[in-house]
């Protein structure tokens, strides 16, 4: 389903939301539009090349997600190899890693993720309420345009530098990413242990958030604005 941006919003970048048959794409689309993007929801790889940025959304289980997205694997890897930003959200972020404990259940063989940020997704320990569901704090660990933002898009309720350090975001997940390279963590969050809540590859063009920016109120919209800004610079 496509929605139309209001006339007052000027499109800063064209963004493709990858439709691989799972989840609620409406909210992420509305969020991106609010952040100034022109959004196309599609599973047509031809549309990927023309876009300024690609969003890999996600709710659901790792195995189903990876299997559903499998026909698009090559095209997604090509995007990652180019300069076009690839932004994974929640399960979409987990799919950027190599594999997940979640895919190993029921005696099935491990499912291969996209392996763009080497690492694995592991389940929270017993004793923690799972899923980790609700609003939790972001602690920015290192520089990345997704979290620093750009000073011209700050809103009334956000600091002028657009940083999301110390702000709250909305999480719903039972697994968390453990990248092989510690520097992949752009921001971390505390839930029994410290886990990466925003990750990025070395080039900085493949990144993801464990939380849902489209559901994280003003902080989430700031991240989406930052993303749209990154796209517009490519």
């Amino acid at each position, binding site marked *: 389903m496509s*929605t139309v941006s209001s006339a007052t919003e000027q499109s800063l970048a064209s963004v493709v939301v990858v439709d691989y048959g799972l989840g609620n794409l409406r909210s992420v689309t509305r969020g991106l539009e609010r952040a100034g993007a022109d959004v196309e929801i599609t599973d047509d790889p031809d549309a990927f090349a023309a876009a300024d940025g690609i969003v890999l959304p996600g709710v659901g289980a790792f195995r*189903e997600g990876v299997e559903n997205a499998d026909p698009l694997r090559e095209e997604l890897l090509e995007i990652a190899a180019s300069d076009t930003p690839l932004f994974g959200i929640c399960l979409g972020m987990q799919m950027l890693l190599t594999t997940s404990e979640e895919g190993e259940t029921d005696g099935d063989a491990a499912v291969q993720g996209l392996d763009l940020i080497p690492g694995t997704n592991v389940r929270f320990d017993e004793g923690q309420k799972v899923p980790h569901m*609700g*609003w939790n704090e972001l602690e920015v660990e290192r520089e990345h345009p997704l979290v620093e933002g750009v000073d011209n898009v700050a809103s009334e309720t956000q600091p002028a530098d657009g940083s999301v350090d110390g702000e709250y975001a909305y999480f719903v*997940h039972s697994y968390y990413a453990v990248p092989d390279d510690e520097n992949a963590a752009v921001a971390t969050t505390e839930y029994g242990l410290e886990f990466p809540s925003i990750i990025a590859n070395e080039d900085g063009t493949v990144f993801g958030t464990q939380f849902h920016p489209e559901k994280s109120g003003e902080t989430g919209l700031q991240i989406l604005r930052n993303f749209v800004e990154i796209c517009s610079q490519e």
Partner: protein
Amino acid sequence: MALTKRIIPCIDVDIDEDGNPAVYTGVHFEDLKYTGDPVEMAKAYNESGADEFVFLDITASAEGRETMLDVVSRVADEVFIPLTVGGGIRTTEDIKETLRAGADKVSITTGALERPELVNEGAKAFGSQCIVISVDARRRFDEQGEHYTEIDGESCWFECTKKGGREGTGIDVLEWAAEAESRGAGELFVNSIDKDGTKDGYDLPLTEAVCDVVDTPVIASSGCGSPEDMYDVFTEAGADAGLAASIFHFDEYSIEETKEYLDEQGVPIRL
């Protein structure tokens, strides 16, 4: 800082005489009072600092369902916080349609009690995170339960009811909560028939008992009359989220002042 406690406004939406969706608030699941337009209300809550938003379709009629999905879509366009939709969900197709309309989670009551496999199917197809199992609990002071709690010196168990409390099931809430969790429910939504609309506080023994048997997040509902009631349900009963309807609808307390109060009391809250 840790995971924060969530403050969740809830609206009950029905179809009015002219066929338009309208928000109602009731007492003991009855005596409904008109309180406003669902989309406008959702917008206002989104801006007021609500952590989530719950939308319950109380029409329970086939014709009402299409209208409601349309309202869900319009609400989803306005809220950038999680949206849970409940009412009349009985099949995986119902779950799919509701999520497609823009809900992030579905709340299921009767549909899951009547066919518990629905929980497994929903969790497998869409993920546990979007399957909220809702119970309408009723206190019973007889010998037919499985788990007893002492309330005012009397031994009490909690029964799952259907049809907003009008029909008993004989099923012990604590048994069902544990079963729903093992089948893949991602969250439990605990209503109390005894407390609904009374504004004299949540059913603390009920909420605490459910929190003790499950590891998934528990949303306490029914009976909230003040920010102090929220404080009690978080600190005494261990709830992860507090849901309220009438105190916010009738502007008795704003979400902001509720959150400020809780923050001052040391409850982790997103301000």
